[in-house]
């Protein structure tokens, strides 16, 4: 590693002698920056397959993270992909089942969710697209 650059240490650690794990930032390492973040939202009923497509505009296949919630269980966000099947999740909810997945390439992030709420429900996804290639 070069002996020049930028470093920020945690409070209480010397910038010159601390281990890299005690640095908040070092230009000696790649950073996982967010290129794009946002949300999308669709309403449907049980059995509907909802697809969300974000044409991210990056020239590479980015690392992504996606979370979702539904209007029925809006107090928390769950990570995707998610495959609960016909059983309940650890909170006892069957808000999404059958199938849900994420596909990403150098053009699109595609999220597909099958609703399983019985009645009409709204699913919201939150996506994070990073400036790092998979």
């Amino acid at each position, binding site marked *: 590693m070069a002996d020049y650059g930028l470093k920020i240490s945690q409070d209480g650690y010397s910038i010159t002698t601390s281990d890299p794990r005690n640095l908040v930032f070092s230009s000696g390492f790649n950073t996982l920056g967010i*290129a*794009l*973040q*946002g*949300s*999308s*939202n*669709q309403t449907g009923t049980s059995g509907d*397959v*909802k*697809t*969300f*497509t*974000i*044409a*991210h*505009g*990056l020239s590479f296949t980015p690392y992504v993270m996606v979370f979702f919630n539904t209007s029925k269980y809006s107090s928390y966000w769950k990570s995707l992909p998610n495959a609960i099947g016909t059983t309940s999740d650890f909170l006892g909810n069957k808000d999404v089942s059958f199938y849900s997945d994420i596909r990403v390439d150098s053009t699109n992030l595609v999220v597909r969710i099958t609703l399983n709420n019985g009645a009409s429900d*709204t699913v*919201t996804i*939150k996506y994070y697209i990073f400036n790092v290639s998979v």
Partner: protein
Amino acid sequence: MIIFYNTQTGGIVGTIEGRVHDVAHLNVGMTVSGVDPDHIDKIVCQWKKTGEEELPDGTIAAIFEPDHPQKDIFLGLDKHPTDVYNFKVKLDTRELVPK
């Protein structure tokens, strides 16, 4: 914030969060199932620098605010972005109105 909406219903289908969007963000597209991509348009709210303030420690901090007629709504959405789905777009004026 960039808001994607259905030009047939006014329903909001998605967002890109942030205050200042460069060309890369402006070129991003979004589609959802059941909506013709040709029926999705977007509203862009950029933030602009309106001044500076000196903090108690002497630091000079820039002040930004939404450069949009519905500034107050976008100030709220900056803190709670998914609250955008409590709104829809009034198609003739392209204003956000509560559902």
